[in-house]
């Protein structure tokens, strides 16, 4: 029979290989799913995974889509490493959009180069404040941050909905639930003419660099890692658990808020009832796919962005249902977790031991 035998040391090669294997298995599952749905599997795979990358514009779209995923994912990976489970990045993203977007609307008539920094700052603060609520509840009342942050996401979404349907609705917008378009001074500059590539991507790359250095070289990064791996050892070392919980929620909230305002100020240009196709939740998958390592998150963000674009493409070109995007994202996470087991355990074939015969 087959048994799982624990390895002496975590297999480093498997840790690198398992995301690749997970993606491979996902592609295989895709072939099966497409066949069952009566579509040509190879055509579908091409439409989903390859076609979006065949044009220059398509490539920049990939990066634009990946930017919020990377920004949020990098922040989440710090928190997850410290065993603080921020599931409410979607809410912090939304609050960032609201706070920053509100500032942009307030300063709509101002013509100053200070508008954009103010808008971005408010966006970050919005995310931070929203992230501080679960931190407070956890440190003061031991309330589980998974539940509190998740529930606050819905609160944030409803606040956004209220604002764009009500007080912030564009009077010249033909009664559509959307805010005024932001002035040019509140918008992120475009990096490449003819594309939607904007400064937000720059923030994403910068965040990868900063968080990477934080985690690998600084005392604070070390404290985050220890508090997640061995809380008793963190106590022994005298690390302040409460401070680390607050900091990880502030960092991940702030980055999610920055992602939110970057999306609204860079890509969308106004506030709408929905400013995110679930980036805050997909970023969780991105964080794990990237092994909670900022550089890994960069690549994982690009891959998950592909599922968004591929999904849209597949809907348009071959008429697959909208759920196909979420389906693939879920499948990737599933296979990733399964393949991770093989980094810790080895598959062994053990024949039954026969009892000796009595003589």
């Amino acid at each position: 029979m087959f048994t799982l035998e624990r390895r002496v040391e975590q297999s480093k090669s498997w840790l690198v290989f398992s995301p690749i294997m997970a993606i491979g298995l996902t592609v295989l599952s895709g072939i099966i799913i497409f066949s069952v749905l009566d579509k040509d599997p190879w055509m579908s795979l091409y439409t989903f995974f390859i076609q979006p990358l065949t044009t220059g514009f398509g490539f920049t779209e990939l990066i634009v889509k990946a930017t919020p995923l990377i920004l949020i994912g990098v922040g989440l990976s710090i928190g997850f490493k410290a065993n603080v489970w921020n599931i409410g990045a979607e809410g912090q993203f939304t609050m960032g959009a609201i706070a920053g977007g509100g500032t942009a609307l307030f300063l709509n008539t101002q013509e100053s180069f200070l508008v954009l920094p103010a808008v971005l700052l408010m966006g970050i603060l919005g995310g931070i404040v929203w992230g501080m609520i679960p931190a407070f509840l956890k440190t003061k009342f031991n309330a589980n941050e998974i539940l509190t942050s998740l529930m606050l996401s819905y609160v944030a979404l409803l606040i956004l909905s209220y604002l764009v349907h009500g007080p912030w609705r564009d009077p010249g917008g033909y009664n559509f639930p959307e805010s005024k378009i932001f002035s040019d001074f509140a918008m992120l500059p475009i990096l490449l003419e003819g594309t939607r590539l904007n400064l937000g991507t720059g923030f994403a790359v910068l965040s990868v660099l900063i968080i990477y250095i934080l985690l690998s070289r600084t005392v604070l990064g070390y404290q985050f890692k220890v508090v997640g791996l061995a809380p008793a050892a963190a106590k022994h070392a005298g690390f302040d658990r409460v401070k680390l919980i607050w900091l990880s929620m502030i960092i991940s909230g702030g980055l999610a808020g920055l992602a939110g305002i970057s999306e609204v100020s860079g890509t969308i240009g106004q506030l709408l009832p929905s400013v995110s196709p679930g980036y805050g939740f997909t970023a969780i998958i991105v964080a794990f796919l990237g092994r909670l390592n900022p550089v890994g998150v960069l690549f994982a963000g690009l891959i998950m962005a592909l599922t968004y674009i591929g999904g849209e493409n597949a809907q348009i070109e071959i008429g697959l249902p909208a759920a196909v995007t979420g389906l693939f994202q879920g499948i990737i996470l599933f296979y990733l977790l399964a393949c991770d087991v093989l980094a810790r355990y080895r598959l062994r074939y053990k024949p039954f031991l026969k009892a000796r015969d009595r003589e």
Partner: protein
Amino acid sequence: MITAPNDSQNNMKSSYDKASGEPNALLELGEISKAFPGVLANDGIDLRVMPGEIHGLVGENGAGKSTLLKIIYGLLRPDQGSILWEGDAVSILGPSQARSLGIGMVFQHFSLFEALTVLENIALAIDEKCKTQELRSRIDEVSRNFGLSIEIDRYVHSLSVGERQRVEIVRCLLQSPKLLILDEPTSVLTPQEAESLFETLNILSKRGCAILYISHKLHEIKKICHAATILRAGRVVANCDPSKEPIKKMAELLVGSQLPEINRGRLTADGIERIHIENLNYTSKDPFSVKLKNISFTVRGGEILGIAGVAGNGQTELMSVLSGEVKDLDEPSIIKFNDQIVTSKGAAERRLLGAGFVPEQRQGHAAVTEMSLVENVFLTALKTCDLEKSGFIDQAKASSLAESIISNFDVRTTGVQAETGSLSGGNLQKFIVGRELLQQPSILIIEQPTWGVDVGAAIILRRALLDLAKSGAAVIIISQDLDEIFEVCNKIAVMADGMISILGDIAAVSMEEIGVLMGGQRYEH
């Protein structure tokens, strides 16, 4: 006389040969082997236990004793080898089959339900259904016959460790075993309780029950065993009659080399009061932990204070209070290190004042299992060894510090980047203690310094502690192992029920006194 391991073929032939009149071995293991990932725990082990014999299975931590026991009791299946019970080949597929053959086992960590009475626990454990009245009289009978007094209707949580062990033994004896296995039974007993146990074992042996006695304490093996098998690194290195062998000889076989002496020499207190504890009171929020009551003592530079006591009497709580992991003490507690009040200071601050701490649990507490050795150096040495530069970690300095720990303390490992979880118990302990010692503390508080550590490493560690004290530091060793305390410490105290009794100079105390104090309020005889 010590004989080399027997040729297993001859063994098997002789027990089959019933006609020749040679006595049958009760249990005979032939060429038993068992491997786990990364280690060959048992390598071709032969063992022979005769009926009514008290057979010692000796070996240091990691020699393979526990694995062998589990194979005999059916908890593990051997990869190779044969088991003969009363001359017949058997496959022991599980503990209930082992029990039906007549093998009973008393575990090192008891498997009793604390919320039930002694009677209920025994009723749960025996394999056949039995009417309560009948069970009571059977328990009484066994209890009287073997000198194991127990109170049938008491709840287990109110029993002392010695009493619980008696319940475990009675439980095994009710099934009339032919072989009783005891795994390190005296590690949790006071000296008096241990004596009482030996008496019981002698009675059992005279009545024909064989005993497999597992221990690394050679003076016990010498005292009660008729025969002994010595294991080292998974192999049998010798069989002997312990009553005829000097302990030193057995110890050398155990370790495989000449054992260096530890010379305690004369430790003189240099007068500087380094550790001052006054009226320490602490009640933890955890309902199962022990309350610390009115603890007061001082330790001067050059002294090694040994705090003896059976586990579970407040040692862990004391350690977390002294190391600064816990700060919310009850009034009027005062802790002073090097004449500074540290009662409300955290662990990192205490270290900056020159204190070092080594808790009992290596993995997950003193060190982070999943991290490399270098990364574990930062854990306590960050500030004391200047490894922090404006928020950044000085990787190069930490790496060289790790290197010197490895070379100074003979840590067997692949290098500073090795995953800490891959080190053996002894090597990891050497690394952890080395990490603390390299910070040159003037105060060191260490809990169970050589628990689960091989003899070679234990000697290195004890020597290091002595050297530290000789250089003027004040050292506290909290240990369950009285032998260790006598070997290394010059002052002794006993901890029981969260209170400490200072006995003073170790040369002036008797084992008797210590034993009585260790038993605490629950000592009875």
